[in-house]
């Protein structure tokens, strides 16, 4: 016993002399957990991203989440959705309340048609609801997607609390680390590649680097993407057009193929990224002043497209972020250039997290934080067969044809309205068209009467 005590006391004395035993323990624990953390990160996420393989962890995660959501579903009762178009067609069929016995060209009740249309649009119109996030039928445990969040039941609230802890305590730091890694690697590696002489080696390396970094970013958002019809992927010398929901669209498309980006040069971190990207392969960045000059823009785009060694251009013709329930008017600029257009449809699954960026509500950083603290971003990408402008078709008709194809594939509503209505006013020409249509009804009847 005395022998053991001596041993103990010497140890204790030794320890007391150096430092507090708990500090030491804490350091060791931290060190171990950090190493484990980083190794896991490396093995399960970064290495597969580099080689483009997947363990299927995210698919499993998605299935588990879906089961939990079904359990927690809180169904909002909905009757038959009234379609604005159906109601207007019905009123038109019954005429503007013309009493056929009298056959006069104007009835005081004509006003009912405009009246009802107007009040319907006050209650709910097709356009303004495209600019706010889609309403969900079941709740996915994110307060931001439940407009009537109230205390429903204790179990649900506990589940929600657990969800918050997991999302903000575990997922968010993981994703932020990955994001920094991905972006950092992109900047560093593309700058290095910029020193190489132009040639096949440089292009090959640049493609690999871009793909790798985008794949890391994809994992940083826990984006689970399904690509369909990859045989239609855009080729060099073409223009890839897609519907726009958020800035993440770029990452989603660029992690599966190499594109030349088009955009305005920003300052700050974005600017640094843009400048280093362009060292490795030719992207098209415009100064703010050049953006207004449509001819300059068109010229640079067509120059790029003619050079067959350069990558296909990626363009979002809607011009602004739409909430992914419809496709709005495509601006015709990219369709005037005259090269092959490769349409791509992107549809997000809103059950896991709403990817729509309402730029009037959140800034970019706020938006990215929201994305990274969602459960996951699940989306489908369809590569549609290439289209070219046909004989006798002008740019606007071509643009509408492409838009219809994208809307049909993605299951989105095809709208003629301009995405610019998010910020600006509607043009008067639309009102004039309505007036013209109504006038024809009045004057047309008069002609019939004079004939008979």
């Amino acid at each position, binding site marked *: 016993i005395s022998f053991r005590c001596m041993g103990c006391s010497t140890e204790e004395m030794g320890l007391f002399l150096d430092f507090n035993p708990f500090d030491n323990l804490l350091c060791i624990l931290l060190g171990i957990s950090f190493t484990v953390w980083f190794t896991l990160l490396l093995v399960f996420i970064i290495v597969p991203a580099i080689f483009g393989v997947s363990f299927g962890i995210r698919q499993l995660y998605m299935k588990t989440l879906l089961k939990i959501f079904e359990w927690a579903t809180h169904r909002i009762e909905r009757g038959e959705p009234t379609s604005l178009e159906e109601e207007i067609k019905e009123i038109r069929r019954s005429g503007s309340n013309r009493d056929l016995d009298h056959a006069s060209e104007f009835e*005081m009740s004509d*006003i009912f048609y405009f009246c009802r249309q107007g009040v319907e649009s006050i*209650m709910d*119109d097709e*356009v303004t609801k495209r600019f706010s996030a889609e309403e969900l039928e079941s709740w996915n445990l994110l307060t931001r997607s439940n407009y009537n969040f109230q205390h429903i039941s204790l179990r649900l609230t506990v589940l929600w609390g657990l969800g918050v802890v997991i999302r903000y305590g575990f997922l968010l730091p993981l994703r932020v680390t990955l994001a920094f890694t991905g972006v950092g690697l992109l900047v560093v590696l593309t700058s290095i590649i910029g020193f190489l002489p132009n040639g096949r080696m440089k292009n090959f390396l640049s493609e690999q680097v871009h793909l790798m970094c985008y794949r890391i970013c994809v994992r940083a958002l826990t984006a689970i993407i399904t690509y369909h019809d990859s045989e239609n992927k855009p080729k060099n010398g073409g223009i890839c057009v897609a519907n726009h929901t958020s800035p993440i669209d770029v990452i989603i498309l660029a992690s599966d193929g190499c594109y030349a980006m088009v955009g305005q040069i920003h300052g700050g971190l974005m600017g640094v990224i843009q400048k280093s990207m362009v060292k490795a392969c030719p992207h098209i960045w415009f100064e703010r002043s050049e953006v207004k000059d449509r001819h300059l823009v068109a010229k640079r785009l067509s120059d790029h497209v003619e050079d067959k060694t350069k990558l296909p251009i990626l363009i979002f013709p809607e011009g602004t972020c739409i909430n992914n329930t419809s496709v709005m008017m495509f601006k015709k600029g990219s369709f005037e250039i005259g090269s092959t257009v490769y349409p791509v449809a992107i549809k997000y699954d809103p059950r896991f997290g709403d990817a729509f960026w309402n730029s009037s509500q959140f800034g970019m950083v706020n938006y990215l934080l929201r994305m990274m603290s969602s459960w996951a971003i699940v989306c489908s990408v369809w590569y549609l067969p290439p289209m070219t402008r046909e004989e006798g078709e002008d740019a606007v008709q071509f643009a509408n044809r492409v838009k219809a194809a994208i809307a049909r594939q993605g299951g989105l509503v095809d709208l003629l309205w301009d995405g610019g209505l998010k910020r600006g*006013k509607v043009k008067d020409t639309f*009102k004039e068209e309505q007036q013209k249509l109504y*006038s024809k009804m009045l004057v047309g009847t008069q002609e019939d009467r004079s004939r008979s």
Partner: protein
Amino acid sequence: MGSRASTLLREEEIEEIKKETGFSHSQITRLYSRFTSLDKGENGTLSREDFQRIPELAINPLGDRIINAFFPEGEDQVNFRGFMRTLAHFRPIEDNEKNKDPTASEPLNSRSNKLLFAFRLYDLDRDDKISRDELLQVLRMMVGVNISDEQLGSIADRTIQEADQNGDNSISFNEFIKVLEKVDVEQKMSIRFLH
């Protein structure tokens, strides 16, 4: 965004609006979130500009007249109660309401009130009469520049001739009702809401 809607509309208010307009609870909350999404200034009232921001309303030839119907005489702001009161005119008439207690005040969506809404769209100066001038102005709004003044004038004259019974060259509300007695107002001036 969503939490604003549920905290600012109290249960008592919803009950009052229910009694006054006949909308259901879910319809009222839904319209309230619509009201707040239109209210860009976030001050609990809508101005004419808030309405004009709706593109489908802005291109409606009678858009301005419809917007005007929401604002009482001389006022520039409408609150949620006023908004609902005007929208109530377009609530469909349900069968069980047709045989209601005759001593109760007329519901906002009765046939007569629907016709009154339409009448007020024509009656620009709110003097309870549609003069030839007012009719011309409204017609001009509906047809734009596509019909000449003379043609439009003759249309207006013909309409007033057919409707006017007491010879004062303008249409009163009773004459208006008579002209439209065959029209299915209940159906044409009703909007099916989302449940």
